[in-house]
């Protein structure tokens, strides 16, 4: 595990990019930020931009769970980087209406 404060951002960025390539076409973009969570633990906040068709009532849990599983397995935030992982999602149309820089 990399001690908090000694994260090689270039290395992490390459791993996240590689992991993002494993995701399906419903994922339009994967962004992330590293910062403490609400309990001051070092964390990585993934921001996933989804195609509108992926944001369906009956499938949203499966879609988001699959995305999180892929990223967790590939990036291993807690095991290799000492980072708690959090995921948030936004649809393309939402992002078009109200730009959130965290998702870009």
């Amino acid at each position, binding site marked *: *595990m990399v001690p908090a404060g000694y994260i090689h951002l270039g290395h992490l960025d390459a791993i996240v990019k590689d992991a993002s390539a494993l995701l399906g076409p419903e994922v339009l973009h994967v962004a992330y930020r590293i910062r403490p*969570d*609400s*309990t001051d*633990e070092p964390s990585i906040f993934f921001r996933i931009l*989804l195609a509108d068709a992926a*944001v369906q*009532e009956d499938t*949203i*849990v499966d879609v*988001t*769970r699959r995305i*999180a599983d892929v990223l*967790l397995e590939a990036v*291993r935030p*807690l*095991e290799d980087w000492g980072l*708690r*992982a*959090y*995921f*948030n*999602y*936004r*649809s393309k149309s*939402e992002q078009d209406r*109200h730009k*959130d820089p*965290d998702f870009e």
Partner: protein
Amino acid sequence: MAYHDDLLRQALELVHTVPPSQVALRRGVSAAYYAAFHFLISEATSNWENISLRTALGRAYEHGVMKTASNRIVDTRRFPFAGEDETVVNSLRFVGRTFSELQEAREFADYNLTKDLGSAGALAQVRSAEEIFNTWPSIRAQQIAQAYLVSLLVKRA
């Protein structure tokens, strides 16, 4: 109907409010977290034989301790769960990860007004809370699931 069931139903109603509003989405995410919070406490305290004291015992649970315990089981290096059924382990990790994520989402929903809470994100959080309810019965009888419930109360692992 149990309190946590009412909270989950309220969360679902709130994220489906038409037209959507920030107050409804934020209260929906907050209610979803508290639904999961009270659901897990209810599951844990149901092991206490004296039924009339279960709600009093539930007062001992703390958000921070529950979050730490939930994050702990996500760590595959510290908690490999060797020899356990992979499906059970994956379900348990999902519960822990989702609980932790819901707590963080509630923090944003209740306190952070610097940017809007999106409806897709809110829906995903509320449906994930519902999935904890759906997943738990399949692992409830497993020792690692019961150990997780105990860990939610223990300040030092």
